[in-house]
């Protein structure tokens, strides 16, 4: 186990370096000039040169990278070109909203997917299984922004059960905070559910055909014990991997959902920064989100090893 963790840590370090370098290069190798983008096409060459010097763009690429990487490691991501606010500060300001949204939505998705997946695998082919599959097929075809608009239309605008836009911090008022996050989280969770459900159901059906399940039955164990203590763990490998990879989809979902529901999260900030061509902010957001994504998938690898003794060696 130790050697497995060490190997994964080594890999994590390498991947983080790649991610950092890629975030940097993305912004620095693409055609187009930041200074020109900032000042507009009518800018004088002198003004452009001055801005370039201010931003350090006249330095060689490698120097700029090392400078940026040093800052990145110390949590300094530069300042926004437009508001002049330190990027890290803006990100830390917005991050809690997004993290809460992602935790709620991913938790909700798993909370629905695990019981439904297990139940439908156990009763594969039954009415309830067919129904769940049909629902899954429909939800799979409904993009997250359509779900978000639909939920908003139904529950916020027509039924008026929940607020449509806005945000209240958790510390200020937990109930209103959750009320504001309920629909956005549900929208993402509903979009995530079908794939998590399908994967768990499929793997579970395969597991239930294994001889060790027959042996568990032959031992006289009951169905609940067999399903949750024997079958669930070996059936959840793909689910765990997928829920790590699905974070990417959740991020896309968060971008849209935060925009639709007016949540002050990192996604909405990033979308705004893209419109405003605030490259420093875009770069910072991309770097932070990517690092978070890599760390989550590192955690997933560790969970995987805890679940499956065979991969530890």
């Amino acid at each position: 186990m130790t050697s497995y963790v060490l190997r994964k840590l080594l890999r994590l370090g390498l991947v983080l370096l790649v991610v950092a370098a890629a975030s940097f290069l993305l912004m620095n190798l693409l055609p187009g000039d930041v200074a020109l983008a900032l000042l507009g096409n009518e800018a004088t060459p002198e003004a452009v040169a001055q801005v370039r010097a201010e931003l350090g763009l006249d330095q060689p690429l490698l120097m700029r990278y090392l400078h940026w990487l040093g800052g990145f490691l110390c949590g300094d991501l530069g300042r926004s070109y437009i508001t002049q606010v330190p990027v890290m500060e803006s990100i830390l300001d917005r991050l809690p909203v997004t993290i809460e949204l992602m935790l709620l939505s991913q938790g909700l998705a798993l909370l629905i997917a695990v019981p439904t997946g297990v139940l439908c695998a156990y009763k594969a082919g039954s009415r309830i299984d067919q129904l769940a599959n049909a629902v899954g097929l429909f939800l799979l075809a409904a993009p997250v922004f359509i779900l978000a608009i639909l939920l908003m239309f139904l529950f916020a605008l027509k039924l008026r059960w929940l607020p449509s836009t806005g945000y209240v911090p958790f510390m200020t008022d937990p109930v209103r905070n959750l009320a504001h996050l309920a629909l956005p989280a549900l929208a993402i969770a509903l979009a995530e559910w079908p794939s998590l459900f399908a994967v768990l159901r499929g793997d579970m059906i395969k597991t239930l055909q294994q001889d060790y399940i027959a042996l568990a039955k032959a031992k006289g164990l009951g169905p609940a014990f067999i399903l949750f203590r024997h079958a669930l763990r070996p059936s959840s490998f793909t689910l765990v991997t997928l829920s790590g990879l699905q974070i990417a989809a959740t991020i896309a979902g968060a971008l849209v959902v935060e925009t639709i529901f007016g949540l002050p999260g990192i996604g909405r900030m990033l979308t705004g920064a893209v419109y405003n061509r605030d490259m420093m902010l875009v770069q910072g957001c991309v770097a932070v989100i990517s690092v978070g994504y890599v760390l989550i998938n590192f955690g997933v690898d560790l969970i995987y090893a805890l679940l499956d003794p065979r991969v530890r060696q």
Partner: protein
Amino acid sequence: MMDAGLPLLEVTDLATHFHTQRGLLRAVDGVSFSVRRGQTLGIVGESGSGKSALARTIIRILSKRHTTTTGRITFEGRDLLTVSEPDMRDIRGRDIAMVFQDPTSSLNPVKQVGVQIEEVLARHLGLRGRAAQTRAIELLTSVGMPLPQERLHQYPHQLSGGMRQRVAIAIALACEPKLLIADEPTTALDVTIQAQILDLLHRRQKAHHMAMILISHDLGVVAGYTDTVAVMYAGQIVEQASTRSLFRNCRMPYTAALMRSAPNLSDPPHTRLRAITGRPPDMVLPPPGCRFEPRCDDATDICRNRRPALSASDADGTHRYACWHPVASPGASA
């Protein structure tokens, strides 16, 4: 034995049909036999003969949605087909235990060996913690597992095939069952390990005075370790006798052909094998008469049209066969 007269298990006219896309598949089709305490019954058949389905039917672990079972399975006076599911769960693992063909797939890959043994002990004997652990070590020792203490915390993939089968046997023997069903317990193993495992099963059986159903495709395996043998073909028992009588004096052409078609060590090299032509029938559309008729050299019209019943060939009725034209028995005047 007090009730030596009564069989421990009596199966009467048992049929198990699978619902498949192609139609009803008659995996087990009208099978009757009985097993006495302390006895070993061998069931021999080729793949597809229904022997595994039969084993799984007896302990009722087939999916109810996909199968229909009819007939009677009387175990210690109770019909297992009418017993409630919770009662059946009490019987499984405690009174009737099973060993499966491939120990690689019959042990849970993500659970430690010890846990897999201890959960039967907890389920049926209420043993937990240290007591369960001590018993698990005893069990592993009794199945000849080297270093039993260390094995408790190992996972199946860390053991060899033979050792995994020993663990599976330890699980099966955990509650000292009255009946052990061993479904091809050595097919996935090498010959030298197969001999070890068969010997182990035989010794444990004698020690516990346990009844056993030993299922195999290999007549040789059955010959050495059973008291009586039933030969299955296409979902039915076609011949049933005491082991000696079957091997000395077989009457059913299929059994005879099966014995002849396997190469024998005592024959000189390049001895021509007497192969059985054709293949077993499609069990969705079995032949109306004798199911072996399409492959049988001696078949006549009656074989094509009428299904032979299992009838006795000797005076005490223990040797029975289903055939219109039985192979001449050296002792009988046919």
